[in-house]
């Protein structure tokens, strides 16, 4: 197994979960039904991402991704994008709140440099500047 030569980008978590606001960033190809689907026809992958607000209705989300079986996510998006689960944890006061912005992208690309230096940074900026998140849960497919 070849480990990444990059250092582990570890940011300490300082605070209390019950007072913290959490965002979700998913590589599972999640997007709103009225947003442009990810371009699965491009063999190099789609480097774009989609942003959702904290008011997103889980039934308005869908998956466009052809590198995993998303039939279960088609029935319940929470298996890859746990927005309703996060709301449950807010209700039970396990977390403090739901971040203003959440992100979906398609976690498959042959353009690793562009993903790492472009898309990933743009998503991080989106979350850092617009979501007021104290921490992020990352999910794949």
């Amino acid at each position, binding site marked *: 197994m070849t*480990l990444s030569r990059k250092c582990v980008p570890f940011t300490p978590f300082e605070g209390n979960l019950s007072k913290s606001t959490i965002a979700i960033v998913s590589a*599972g190809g999640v997007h709103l039904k009225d947003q442009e689907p990810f371009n699965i026809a491009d063999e190099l992958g789609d480097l774009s991402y989609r942003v959702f607000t904290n008011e997103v209705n889980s039934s308005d989300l869908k998956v466009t991704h052809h590198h995993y079986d998303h039939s279960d996510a088609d029935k319940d998006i929470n298996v890859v994008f746990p927005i309703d*689960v996060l709301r449950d944890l807010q209700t039970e006061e396990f977390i403090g709140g739901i971040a203003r912005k959440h992100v979906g992208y398609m976690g498959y690309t042959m353009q690793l440099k562009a993903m790492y230096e472009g898309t990933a940074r743009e998503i991080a900026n989106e979350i850092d500047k617009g979501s007021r998140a104290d921490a992020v849960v990352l999910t794949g497919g």
Partner: protein
Amino acid sequence: MKGIPTVLITVSPEVSAQMRPPRALYPNGFKNGNSLGKPGMRELQRSVLRDALSLLTIDTRPGEVVTRDYPDYGDYHEPPRVRKASKTDA
């Protein structure tokens, strides 16, 4: 930017470990497409998400994936393996 704490939920622990995530949870035996469990199993999904978020608050070893068992999931799926690097890859 000072950085944002993250925790990953992965169903491909060996693949994810290559990227050395700062914190990661592998729900043992969950298949691809079931990061939080199966559709409608909300209590199981809550357990997985609570455990993932809790990794933010404990001393984990950055770059390692923590495995937890969730018997309620029912099935066991072998996770994808990483192809061994050949000499030319080293």
